[in-house]
C-alpha cells in the first residue's frame, strides 16, 4: 500500500464497479420492458457496497434478484418505466461522483509531484 493506490482509491474502484454493474442490470430491465413474463432484476446497492469494502478482494459480481412489490401487468411483466429511468439517472450520477473523486485524488498527487520541484 502506498500513497498513489491508497484504500480510498480501492474503495472508489469497487464503488464504480458496482455502479456499472447496476447500470447493466437497469439497461437490461429497460430493454425487456415489453417482454412477457420478464421480472425486474436488481441488487441492494448499499448492502453490496458495504460487503465489497469490508474485504480486500476485488468486487464480486453481486447476485441480481427479482425485485418484490412491483405492479405486474397481465402478461406477467413487472418492469416499471418510471422506476427504471429514475434509477438510470441515479446510477449515472453515482458513477460520475466516483469518477470525479478518483480524478480529484490523482490530481492531488499530481500537484504534490509538480509543486515539490518548484521553489
Amino acid at each position, binding site marked *: 500500500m502506498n500513497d498513489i493506490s491508497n484504500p480510498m482509491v480501492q474503495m472508489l474502484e469497487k464503488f464504480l464497479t458496482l455502479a456499472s454493474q447496476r447500470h447493466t442490470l437497469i439497461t437490461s430491465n429497460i430493454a425487456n420492458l415489453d417482454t412477457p413474463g420478464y421480472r425486474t432484476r436488481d441488487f441492494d446497492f448499499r448492502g453490496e457496497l458495504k460487503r465489497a469494502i469490508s474485504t480486500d478482494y476485488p468486487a464480486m459480481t453481486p*447476485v441480481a434478484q427479482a425485485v418484490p412489490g412491483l405492479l405486474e401487468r397481465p402478461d406477467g411483466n413487472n418492469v416499471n418505466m418510471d422506476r427504471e*429511468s429514475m434509477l438510470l439517472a441515479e446510477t449515472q450520477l453515482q458513477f460520475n461522483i466516483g469518477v470525479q473523486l478518483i480524478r480529484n485524488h490523482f490530481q492531488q498527487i499530481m500537484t504534490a509531484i509538480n509543486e515539490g520541484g518548484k521553489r
Partner: protein
Amino acid sequence: MSIFSTLEISGSALAAERQRAEVVAANMANAETTHTAAGGPYRRKEVVFSSSGNMPFRMMLANFRTLGFHPIPAVRVARIVDDPTPNVMRYEPDHPDANKDGYVAYPAINPIQEMVDLMSAVRTYQLNASAVTASKQMIQQALDILK
C-alpha cells in the same frame, strides 16, 4: 459483465422495438388488403418478444462457469405471429374478391390499436436510446480518469 455490454443490451432493444414498429406499419399499410400471395386477406401480424436470458439450466451453469457471472438478458423478437381474430366480412358484390354471397373478407385491423402499439414502440425506443446515451457518457467519464 462489462459496461460495454450495456450498449449491446440497449442495442438489442432498439432493434426489437424498430421491428415492432415495422410490423405495425405493415399492418396499417395492409388494412384493406383482400388478396395476398398465400390466398385470402392479409392477416394482422404481432411480434412476440423474448428475453435472451431465458436459457436452460445447463447452459446457464456452463455460462456461469466460463464467464463467472449470470448473463444479463437482452431482448429479441422470438417470432412474428398471426392475429387469430376472424376477418371482417363486408357486403361488396362488385368486388373481384367477393364470395358467392357477395361478401369480401377484410383483415381485422383496428387503426387505434395499431397507433397505440406504435406509440408504445416509439416511447420504448426513446427510453432505450436514453440508456445508450447514459452508457456512452459513463464510458467517456471512465476514460476521462486518464486525462
